[in-house]
């Protein structure tokens, strides 16, 4: 068969594609459990952190011992409890549009839904070094303890700083946060008892 014939070209291309696709499929299948576990751990870590719980030695055990999954509407949320079995706080998913892509994460709120306990991101695609700094601890930590007043949006200023040179990303985070909080308040009757 001539190397430049149509038939050879077609067979060669198909065969090579099949070989490489198989190689990738096998690798993906082999590593899938590890990858899924890594992603789940990132999420567990974020949930524990927004509720102020240290992950301890074994993240998975801490997670299943300290938290109870619950439903708010059709959203999966997590509740943490004190020694008497009273709710200490909820981890509520945060999801919205950043400057460049979607931002996903969790916020922690107190049991009576009157103040933020923390905020963590699982996924964000902001510019590294600029908007990407929303994932730095100093930025996220300033949201812990912010009071949630019904009908009043959270805003920068008064102890809450936006990031210099990353106004759009900072504002995007604030908008997502306010949307999430107002969404959360629609479940107030179910959650705050």
């Amino acid at each position: 068969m001539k190397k430049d014939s149509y038939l050879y070209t077609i067979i060669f291309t198909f065969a090579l594609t099949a070989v490489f696709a198989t190689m990738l499929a096998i690798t993906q299948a082999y590593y899938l459990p590890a990858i899924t576990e890594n992603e789940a751990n990132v999420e567990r870590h974020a949930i524990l952190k927004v509720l102020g719980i240290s992950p301890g030695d074994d993240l998975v055990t801490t997670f299943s011992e300290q938290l109870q999954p619950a439903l708010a509407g059709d959203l999966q949320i997590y509740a943490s409890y004190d020694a008497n079995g009273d709710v200490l706080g909820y981890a509520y998913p945060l999801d919205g549009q950043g400057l460049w892509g979607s931002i996903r994460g969790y916020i922690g709120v107190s049991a009576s839904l009157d103040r933020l306990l923390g905020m963590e991101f699982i996924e964000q695609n902001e510019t590294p070094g600029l908007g990407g700094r929303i994932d730095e601890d100093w930025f996220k930590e300033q949201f812990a303890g912010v009071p949630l007043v019904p009908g009043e949006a959270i805003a920068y200023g008064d102890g809450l700083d936006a990031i210099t040179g990353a106004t759009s990303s900072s504002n995007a985070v604030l908008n997502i946060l306010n949307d999430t909080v107002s969404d959360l308040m629609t479940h107030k009757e179910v959650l705050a008892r």
Partner: protein
Amino acid sequence: MKKGAIKALFRRNVWEENQVLRQILGICSLLAVTNLVSNSLVMGGGLIFSVALSSFTISLLREYIPHRVRMIVQTLIIASWVILFDIILKAVLPDISRALGPYIGLIITNCIIMGRAEAFAQMNPPVESFFDGVFAGLGYTIVLVIIAVIREFLGFGTFFGINVNFVGFQTWTIMVMPPAAFFIIGVMIWIVNNIMARKQASGGGKRG
């Protein structure tokens, strides 16, 4: 394969025909990742892995690849190795994978890999092609790290994430953004071109 040949490949790819400084390839990713030294190192590692294995595979198949579809076949091979690297990184080093995000996948579009495939791998034996790829990637990585050290220091006052801003100067926001790499790479190309021109004038162009 002779030892001298590897040395010659090293010299040529890292210095005389450095992919970034002499051939102006791979600039796009250079602008994106060089604001942190750690990201630059992983990006360089990813490129060395991908370009070496792609060159090796393309060279192995060079007698069998039909000429008219060779670019598409090269892209297929390159994409496969890069995706493989991405999967392994996600499974083994999830933190770094998260930090680099989409940049790893974008190695596929790095002009250096296609450049080495077209200029070297498709007419040289596999082992030579493999080393050609390693050294081309190494030349790229060295330039990346040099720029990253400058940008990270001036932009964040850190080195590898460790604070080295002892005098407390105001960090430059411009250094964090891609245009900064343009200024630095411009100066570097200017310096290297000057050295090369001077060498040629005095040494009479020993290497043609």
